[in-house]
């Protein structure tokens, strides 16, 4: 179990991580989501004791990482694709890490096989592709057979087969009762692996929810209605927080009412409804929606609201 309490990291004036409090439970895959620059990597480095928090604390199984007597058996981490000396072979890299904690050579060969690097284990890591580097990083994380895994963007650079492999691996490890904390900036990826999500933006907590709950949270009760009397229905429904947007000659989208309420109103005045469809936002849309205001390097579409504010100030 990973626990962060008020975790904060400041670099000069810039707040990279702002007062994050969360708990990562064992037995499931927890996704750590946020746009690039949201503070995911910094948070993970603080969990691993590599960066000192400006404020706050974090513990893994009740202990600060630096106080773990057997760190590699408690926690395995993949922090950057290449936390590997480029001049050393994959096998020697793993042997050196294993030696710090008395892990036998047999286990080194085992993880090399597990991540599929057997053929290249004797080669210098400097010549590895991004995907092979990721596999080697995952091998080092698994060396101590730890109960907790912290992985920063593990699918980065992996080919589709590799992505599928890591997805299944993480699920299998979680099913064994381990704590799995995986960061990504891709909601679609997390939707397939994680069952719980911690979403941050600009260093701040945005959501700490189950995957299903997040979808519900972000879909604003949009209902698509097709009817022969669109203008009349629109007049009837609009107002009081209910917005009706025509999307076609005979179609409107209603926000603020659910499909049952719309159906009852229409039936009462005798409007025939041809179609009545509740619209669920996809997880991807949900993510975009809740992080929209916090994107660090937004494109013009995302900064439109900023332009409007400036216009208003003028």
């Amino acid at each position, binding site marked *: 179990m990973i626990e962060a309490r008020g975790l904060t990291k400041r670099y000069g004036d810039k707040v990279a991580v702002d007062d994050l409090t969360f708990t990562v439970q064992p037995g499931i895959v927890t996704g750590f989501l946020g746009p690039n620059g949201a503070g995911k990597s910094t948070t993970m480095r603080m969990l691993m004791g590599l960066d000192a928090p400006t404020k706050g604390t974090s513990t893994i199984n009740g202990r600060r990482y630096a106080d773990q007597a057997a760190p590699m058996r408690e926690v395995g981490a993949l922090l950057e694709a290449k*936390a590997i000396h480029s*001049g050393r072979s994959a096998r020697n890299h793993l042997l050196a890490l294993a030696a710090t904690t*008395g892990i036998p050579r047999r286990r080194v060969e085992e993880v090399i096989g597990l991540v599929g690097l057997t053929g290249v284990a004797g080669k210098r890591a400097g010549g590895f592709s991004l995907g092979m580097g990721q596999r080697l990083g995952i091998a080092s994380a698994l060396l101590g057979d730890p109960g907790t895994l912290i992985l920063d963007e593990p699918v980065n650079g992996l080919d589709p087969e590799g992505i599928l492999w890591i997805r299944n691996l993480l699920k299998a490890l979680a099913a064994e009762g381990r704590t799995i904390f995986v960061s990504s900036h891709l909601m679609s990826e997390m939707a397939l692996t994680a069952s719980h999500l911690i979403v941050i933006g600009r260093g701040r907590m945005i959501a700490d929810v189950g995957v299903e709950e997040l979808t519900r949270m972000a879909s604003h009760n949009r209902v698509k209605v097709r009817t022969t009397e669109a203008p009349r229905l629109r007049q009837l429904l609009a107002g009081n927080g209910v917005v009706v947007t025509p999307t076609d000659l005979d179609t409107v989208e209603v926000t603020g009412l659910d499909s049952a309420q719309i159906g009852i109103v229409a039936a009462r005045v005798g409007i025939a409804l041809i179609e009545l469809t509740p619209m669920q936002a996809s997880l991807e849309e949900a993510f975009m929606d809740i992080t929209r205001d916090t994107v660090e390097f937004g494109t013009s579409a995302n900064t439109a609201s900023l332009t409007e504010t400036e216009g208003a100030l003028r």
Partner: protein
Amino acid sequence: MTATTLRPTSAGPTLGVVTQKRVVLSEWIKLRSLRSTIFALLAAVVCTIGLGLLIAALRANQIETNGGFHPGPDFDATAVTLRGVYLAQLAIGVLGVLVITGEYSTGMIRATLSAVPRRLPVLWAKAAVFAVVVFVSMGISSLIAFEGGAAFFSGAGIHISLSTPGAARAVLGAALYLTVIGLLGVGLGFLIRNTAGAISALFGLMLVLPPIANALPSSLYNDIDKYLPLIAGTQVMTTVGGGSSVLSPWAGMGVFTLYAVAAIGLGAVVLKRRDA
């Protein structure tokens, strides 16, 4: 898909616990698994032996062609045979820096410090492994350079051996000098973290400081020059000369060692305090 795991079947009570001994073993694996280490050590060996023998042969030949005329009591044949150390120090100093900065430039340091979160055991282990490897390899090299050089000189009628006063100390001192300059590099590597910066600092301290100090008024220069790292550290390789303008061989080595201790001490503070 099965997640192959290591259930603690043969688990002793210390399974997975980080100990200083284990970190030393880890650093030993790291040191010998890099080609750059092997090359740098090889270069230092070749410089110490090759250059030492070459210079000794040239000097012996010069004395012989002069009709056996002895160059005088100030001639330090032992120091001549160890002159290759001056070139070898570049390779060893750079290696000392690279052992540390190579981890920072590649990102390896994050893997290292994740494995050993208390951090300082890494510094002690790196310094110890590096010091032993350099001391042993350079001790053998300077002994070979000395014995080979002595053979050339004996042909010219100048007889030196390990029993010549100061000679054994000078040979041992050459290995010590190289070990300490390497450790100075290790300390600066932890302190500065950047390869170019740490190498500049190391050789700035060693080679650039003396001529700058030399430009000071002589009343000032005479007080400080003997404490400069290069001048203090190299006294141990001489068997003739000395006097009040320089420190005694072991006092000089002591001062030189203090520079390395200071660098490693500051490096330790930075390693412990700063984000990796």
